[in-house]
């Protein structure tokens, strides 16, 4: 028997916000996000009622085909969404859903990932962003049994700090079918670990050179690096602006497509922060405001 927390069981036996949303008033919109697969044994339909003027979620509800943790994760997600703007909602991670429930068995973490994906699907639907063009679908297909790309595996590894292929399977099912892609998942884990190690080594070197920078010197150097990054973001319909520097915390405003992108955390941490640490100061932390 699974070792579920009391909160998981509470949300399973008494799920919040269950059912469909069909009625809306003027100035409101309803959007739906469907994820999961009957063959895999879990599927989630998430309903959001949106206040168009404020771009925020009025209510959220769900219908779930799945186990106790799938139902509890769906219920938890709808609770987390209360009062959020769509941009704020997009920043909710599967880890937050699991944490809200006091944790999930590792083999059930994919239930929390399903919740996060349904949320993205619902908001993308509302914003008219075709799901087929989701950046995760642009990656190479790794797990053909469950149709999962390398980009998605990479994202889940980074967001959850996964270290083994078994963990990847627990979180997104990749590798859990025929198992023929497990070696590819191992390769991805290895390359991500190597990237991290490389970044740490280079930033250590940089810190020795830049440890004595004044605040003005830091800002100037940060601006130079950001100017190098901006053309790439602009080409994707986004942009950024340096708002402030407090100690070693770099405060950025993400604009356009970057502001609503589900992968903005990865862009911030793996793209911008890593580059700033490499080229300016290893102790810099980037935050979006």
């Amino acid at each position: 028997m699974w070792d579920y927390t009391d909160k998981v069981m509470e949300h399973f036996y008494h799920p919040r916000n269950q059912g469909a949303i069909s009625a809306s008033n003027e100035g409101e919109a309803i959007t739906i996000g469907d994820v999961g697969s009957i063959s895999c044994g879990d599927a989630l339909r998430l309903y959001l009622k949106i206040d168009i003027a404020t771009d925020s979620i009025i209510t959220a509800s769900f219908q779930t085909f799945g186990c106790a943790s799938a139902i509890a994760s769906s219920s938890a997600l709808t609770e987390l969404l209360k009062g959020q703007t769509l941009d704020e909602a997009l920043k909710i991670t599967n880890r937050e859903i699991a944490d809200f429930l006091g944790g999930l068995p590792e083999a059930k973490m994919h239930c929390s990932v399903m919740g996060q994906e349904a949320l993205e699907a619902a908001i993308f639907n509302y914003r008219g962003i075709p799901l087929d063009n989701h950046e995760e679908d642009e990656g190479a297909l790794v797990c053909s049994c469950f149709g999962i790309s390398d980009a998605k595996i990479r994202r889940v590894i980074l967001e959850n700090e996964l270290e083994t292929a078994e963990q990847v399977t627990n979180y997104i099912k990749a590798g859990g079918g025929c198992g023929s892609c497990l070696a590819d998942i191992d390769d991805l884990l290895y390359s991500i670990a190597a990237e991290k190690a490389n970044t740490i080594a280079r930033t250590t070197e940089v810190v020795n050179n830049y440890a004595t920078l004044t605040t003005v010197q830091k800002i100037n150097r940060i601006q130079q690096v950001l100017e190098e990054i901006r053309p790439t973001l602009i080409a994707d319909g986004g942009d950024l602006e340096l708002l402030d520097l407090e100690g070693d915390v770099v405060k950025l405003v993400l604009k356009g497509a970057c502001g609503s992108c589900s992968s903005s955390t990865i862009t911030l941490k793996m793209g911008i922060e890593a580059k700033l640490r490499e080229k300016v100061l290893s102790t810099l932390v980037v935050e979006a405001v």
Partner: protein
Amino acid sequence: MRDCIYLDNNATTKIDEEVLAAMLPYLTLYYGNPSSMHSFGGQVGKATKTAREQVASLIGAQSPAEIVFTSCGTEGDNAAIRAALMAQPEKKHIITTEVEHPAVLSLCKNLEKQGYSVTYLSVNGQGQLDLSELEASLTGNTALVTVMYANNETGVIFPIEQIGSMVKEYGALFHVDAVQVVGKIPLNMQESTIDMLTLSGHKLHAPKGIGALYVRRGTRFRPLLIGGHQERGRRAGTENVPGMVALGKACELAEYHLINVGHEQQLRDYLEQSILTTIPNTAVNGHPVQRLPNTSNIGFKYIEGEAILLSLDQFGICASSGSACTSGSLEPSHVLRAMGLPYSVLHGSIRFSLSRYTTQTEIDRVLEVLPGIIDRLRALSPFNSDDATWLQEQEQAVLAK
């Protein structure tokens, strides 16, 4: 631990009090080694002799010498299959079915890596074999046909003697995994084509950790465990005397209770028919008649098995499910999949397996709470709404694969 309504007897059973009473002295007073020359061990040896006779009697063996005590069903299956292959090293083909227990399936997959070819016979929507497929698969190179007597998940019984007759025409050995059958339906090895038959104690009210393998007299056999001379050289290792005594007593009691097995079937049928008539979109998985009298596997469409099980558990009711979520694997029951059931049914399948201890009151309690549980979970399901489009798309996508 709270009282429970235990309907998971195909997983394991309660130890009968008479069985417990029979085995206890061999854990305390009579702890001698039956292989010892002194009388303290010798009296223990007499108890194991009686136990062997009791097991032989239940399955209608010609002689107690045909009984080899093992540690469990898995060991019995492994010992039989490997013995059959070692005894016929020139033959490299095995026939089994897609719906076997992992004790057989996993071993066969492993043997494929060692150079054996394995034919996995399919089943139809009611879990039955097509004997023409078996006939087409048998060759002079077939060393062994290993088939379960009845399926652990659906209870579907295979036509064992028909299969055995076909196997004998090709000179292959015939092993039957009868773990779910022994004690539930009468067996008579003296009138059977079976060469080897596996049984397990904890499925018939003996404790876990004891089983037996029937090996027909004259069958070429090579032991899995090699060491001392125990079990007439067929299974080395100091005997689990309390377990053997317990299994013997359990077999004696099972033989007695076989005359009253209609009690289980009556309750099973009552449970099954009541569910089918009171809860819509339900179906029995497996053949309606060719089934064990104690087993009912029911598919509850649109909902998932683990959610049903946990909801039943809240009322102290124990059953089991072949859903992926229950097992921790990502694949649902290989048995139900082999039967070609739609995913919307097989993920929500629940197995109720009764025993001679099951009462009418217990079944009534299940019938009292189950409709409410199913209603609650279906109200949560996206596939139970008026809009069936999504489910249809999903099912079609699976078929297209």
